[in-house]
């Protein structure tokens, strides 16, 4: 048989648990079937993987669980097309393929001793959730932790059970919000768009790192707010989510200029993103 490694060959994993976050967003907890892979699989917060549903193909999602939690990985995805729809039809006990981890990551060690502000919009909480749990598991290494999270409507907020946990644990400031018109009668968060709510919450920029994930339009409006709050472009991190296929710098799909998001990203500082100043 072949001696050379097939970089497109996924590891097999079993779906161990399923959580429906919203009507179209689902979290899968995956356990690798091969014992050696299970033991040796490591990743860093911010990295992504290619998940396959056999018969349909592959989709790119970040690894949404924290690297500090061993034995399984989680992904959280919105059903939007062929592969994601088919992944959503799978059940506990079914097999999916996983190749990765790919890409760079958030340099968490460099954040030790600082305050953190997480800003996420809609389905973009998963890429930050991995960092949030990673940092909460090392809570004493950080000063204040603020999470600003918003979605179009109350029903679109993902990880509702964890939002509650963060709200109640006392060592995290959680500001959750929904777009105007999206709140139900009992909503206990704020009504407004993420950038506006962030500006009101006004976290201090002093010795603080901001991590932003969301649709391009949200990021576009959030960066000036952070600037007004006093954050420098080097202290703002974000992820780019260009369409990917190979994940390993071959298929030519994910580039922004000469940056390959799958290899050089997906994590970038605001300074790096601004330097690209090109289509993304």
């Amino acid at each position, binding site marked *: 048989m*072949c001696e*050379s490694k097939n970089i497109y060959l996924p590891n097999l994993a079993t779906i161990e648990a399923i959580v429906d976050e919203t009507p179209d967003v689902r979290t899968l907890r995956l356990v690798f079937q091969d014992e050696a892979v299970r033991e040796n699989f490591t990743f860093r917060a911010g990295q992504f993987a290619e998940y396959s*549903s056999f018969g349909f193909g592959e989709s790119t999602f970040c690894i949404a669980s924290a690297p500090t939690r061993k034995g399984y990985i989680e992904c959280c995805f*919105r059903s939007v097309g062929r592969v994601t729809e088919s992944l959503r039809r799978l059940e506990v*006990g079914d097999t999916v393929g996983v190749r990765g981890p790919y890409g760079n990551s958030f340099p968490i060690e460099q954040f030790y001793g600082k305050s953190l502000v997480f800003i996420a919009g809609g389905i973009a909480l998963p890429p930050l959730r991995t960092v949030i749990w990673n940092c909460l598991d090392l809570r004493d290494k950080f000063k204040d932790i603020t999470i600003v999270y918003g979605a179009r409507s109350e029903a679109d907020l993902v990880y509702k059970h964890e939002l509650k946990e963060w709200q109640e644990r006392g060592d995290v400031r959680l500001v959750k919000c929904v777009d105007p018109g999206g709140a139900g009668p009992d909503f206990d968060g704020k009504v407004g768009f993420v950038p506006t709510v962030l500006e009101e919450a006004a976290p201090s920029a002093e010795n603080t790192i901001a991590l932003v994930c969301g649709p391009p339009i949200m990021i576009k409006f959030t960066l000036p707010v952070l600037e007004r709050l006093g954050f420098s472009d080097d202290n703002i991190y974000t992820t780019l989510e260009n*369409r990917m296929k190979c994940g390993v710098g*071959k*298929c030519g799909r994910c*580039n922004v200029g000469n940056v390959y998001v799958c290899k050089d990203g997906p994590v970038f500082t605001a300074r790096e993103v601004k330097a690209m100043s090109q289509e993304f």
Partner: protein
Amino acid sequence: MQIITEQNLRNLIDLLVKEAKLVVGPKLSGSVVLYEPLTAGTELTLDALPRRSSKELFFPVCEDILSYKREGGGMKVTDVDRSKFPETVLIGAPPCDAGSPSILDAVMSWDYKDEFYLERRKKSTIVGIACTKGDDACFCQAVGLAPDAENGSDLFLTPLKDGSYACNAVTEKGQALVAAHKNLFAEGAGAEPVPFVDQAVQKLDLVKIKKWLEEHFEDPLWERIADICVGCGACAFICPACHCFDINDEGSTDDGVRRKHWDACGFAKFTNHASGHNPRDVQNKRYRNRIMHKFKYYDDKFGKTLCTGCGRCIRACPVGIDIAEILETINGKAE
């Protein structure tokens, strides 16, 4: 110098086929010349540039990268046995085709290695041939190759006026091919080479062009020249250097194959996000990416230009977009 007569070149093909090698060369296929497997030396046709490039010998239009099958309660995934890829000789490729694998090696082998491509490369010998068939779409000289450029060839043939070929074994693979068939080659001075066709395109300053591209990501030129592109992808599919691909499953959820197949950055959905956001939402941005990738990004990353000047995209474009003309325009504008 080593000389091979035309008859012995055809005999060489016969011998290689007998040795169970896959021999691929220009062959008349219906009304067009294409690179196809040769079953006999008589099939080799050297009087026209093949319509499609020889890239697909290393990077097939479509290839299996794994198969899967439901077994018991689980799934079994089987790798493709790349040790079965055949020993291959590509014969009769002009420099614009012979030179492309040596350009693509860079992207296929940095960091993660694409063993499908690399295994085929390892098992192949390229017999290039100096080009005397150029037409007015050719511009290999303008991008640093030439009708007699040996880059990428293991053995290089130069057509001589008496119908024979001067041979230069460029690499060890080329030397091995000659050594294994010594009696077909003769030592001699050889006749005069057949002259090359003059290329109409002026020599381009690729460094200058790259600098202009760096500074003119936004430029009216893109709208002017690329708005008419219909995004058919013909230019990419016919190009010896384009390497974009997609990955998809074919089969049922119980049994099937995963395949890698060509794609093109000119297609409207190429970069479309699931959210509906598309970074390259209009055609001129997609065409700009094509030029940028070939003459700036690839060079930034790998120090190479992703174009061999074969002119195929010029001949194939249904709306007459002429890459050489665009490069000349940029060359003229650049300081």
